[in-house]
């Protein structure tokens, strides 16, 4: 500890001859130096390995949707720059396929998205059990360019393809008792290996109030960027509620059930204090551990202010009139 370091010799004192005479020692030390440096650097590198890593030139494979698509317009489209396809499909939260952001893309091939059956039941006059392709072809697909705001304070702009959930609900005819819509993700640990660890209660469940579900902005997405939805983005069918935090957009849906009572929702079960049932994007209500006042748009460096209801306040604020958004967050 207390060994004194000798003062550094001036360069003129370091004679090549000395070095020449001690060359074996020098070579040995150089080798030990390089080896140790490599072990230390490599060790740290490995420790950091399993964190979110960028992927090299990964472009997921997805079928092109060849149906005519109503182009997005007005309320249903933002003209903000779209997030690159590669970012949308490699930076995902989908714990069923792993906890790191790039895990879902790496494991996407494990999820078999066809054949796929969706059950629509509960408080409906016409329950419907249907193959997902039949479901999709029963409605005209629309393109919607929506902002997506994750609860983790990052955001994207995504050109979705899909059908308004309201149209599907009209078809199954909710009874007068129906007050909420409950959604369930596929549960199959073989296809969704994340379900082998109890990090959340499986299967993932989400829910909306019936009026939220019927709102024209609420979309059942089947694709993005004009292509079929990749598995990591929730293929074959996912929910998109653009004025709510991303975790409300439940992925890989197998069941839609109309209920009388407010259904349980996964993140709310996991941590009531941090994740509410409504989860409306609200810069005035912070997450207990971080501010929600600003967000980082993927691809941008500086933060931007977060908008109330993610910029859709004119269209949706009425759904919550008379509610205390601080209490019902």
């Amino acid at each position: 500890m207390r060994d004194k370091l000798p003062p550094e010799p001036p360069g003129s004192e370091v004679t090549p001859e000395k070095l020449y005479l001690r060359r074996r020692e020098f070579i040995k030390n150089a080798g030990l130096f390089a080896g140790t440096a490599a072990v230390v650097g490599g060790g740290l590198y490995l420790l950091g390995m399993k964190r979110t890593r960028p992927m090299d030139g990964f472009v997921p494979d997805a079928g092109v949707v060849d149906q005519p698509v109503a182009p997005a317009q007005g309320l249903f489209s933002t003209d903000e720059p779209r997030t690159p396809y590669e970012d949308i499909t490699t930076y995902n939260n989908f714990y069923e396929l792993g906890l790191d952001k790039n895990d879902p893309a790496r494991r996407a091939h494990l999820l078999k998205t066809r054949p796929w059956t969706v059950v629509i039941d509960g408080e409906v006059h016409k329950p419907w059990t249907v193959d997902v392709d039949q479901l999709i072809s029963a409605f005209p697909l629309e393109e919607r360019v929506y902002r997506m705001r994750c609860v983790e304070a990052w955001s994207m702009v995504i050109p979705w393809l899909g059908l308004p959930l309201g149209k599907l609900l009209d078809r199954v005819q909710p009874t007068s008792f129906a007050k909420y819509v409950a959604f369930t993700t596929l549960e199959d640990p073989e296809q969704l290996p994340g379900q082998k660890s109890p990090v959340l209660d499986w299967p993932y469940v989400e829910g909306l109030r019936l009026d939220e579900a019927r709102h024209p902005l609420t979309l059942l997405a089947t694709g993005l960027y004009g292509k079929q939805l990749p598995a990591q983005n929730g293929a074959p069918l996912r929910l998109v509620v653009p004025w709510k935090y991303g975790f409300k957009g439940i992925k890989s849906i197998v069941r839609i059930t109309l209920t009388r009572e407010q259904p349980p929702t996964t993140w709310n079960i996991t941590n009531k204090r941090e994740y509410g049932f409504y989860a409306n994007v609200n810069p005035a209500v912070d997450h207990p551990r971080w501010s929600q006042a600003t967000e980082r748009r993927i691809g941008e460096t500086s933060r931007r202010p977060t908008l109330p209801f993610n910029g859709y306040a004119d269209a949706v604020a009425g759904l919550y009139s008379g509610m205390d958004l601080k209490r019902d967050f």
Partner: protein
Amino acid sequence: MASSKLPWLNPAIAVGGLSPLLLLAVQGAQGQLGANGIEFALNQTGLFALAVLVGSLACTPVRLVTGWTWPARIRRTLGLLAFTYAAAHFLTYAVLDQGLDVRAMAEDVFTRPFITVGFTALMLLVPLAVTSTNKWVRRLGFPAWQRLHRLAYVAAVLGVVHFVWRVKKDVTEPVLYGAVLALLFAVRVGEALRKRRALARERPA
């Protein structure tokens, strides 16, 4: 303390330890850190700071258990390396993540326990980095200097808490670091007790 001279040891630790930081800087400058490079840089620098700090705290227990002397000789380098990563972590947060928005950062530090804890850990490391030289050991006197540098343990514990509170749900990794820390602490407590008992036995009845 020093048995054989190992002139290459500390330079190797410094060069090897700083190489991931250099790599991160180069990749960051080239925009090769993925969709959310700032988040990636934050995670990496924070993780390395904690890992190296735990490494520096492992030096004495490893020496006690194995009898090797070299761990003691790299302790200072590891400590300074940990401080370097903690500072890089904070600068990434302050400059890149928050855009030097002092009000937002003050709010973070004073109202969000998870940030408060992390910031406190960094503040504890500052005096340790400043007093890491031999001159400071002499100036303070070894016992006082040693007492001061026990703050490294406090900083590491706060680092683990900061990590636990950061993750949304899966606490496996931070708990792992906490477990290693507890093990190291147990070795040192065991050693202290052994010393005390030895002293008690030496006393004439």
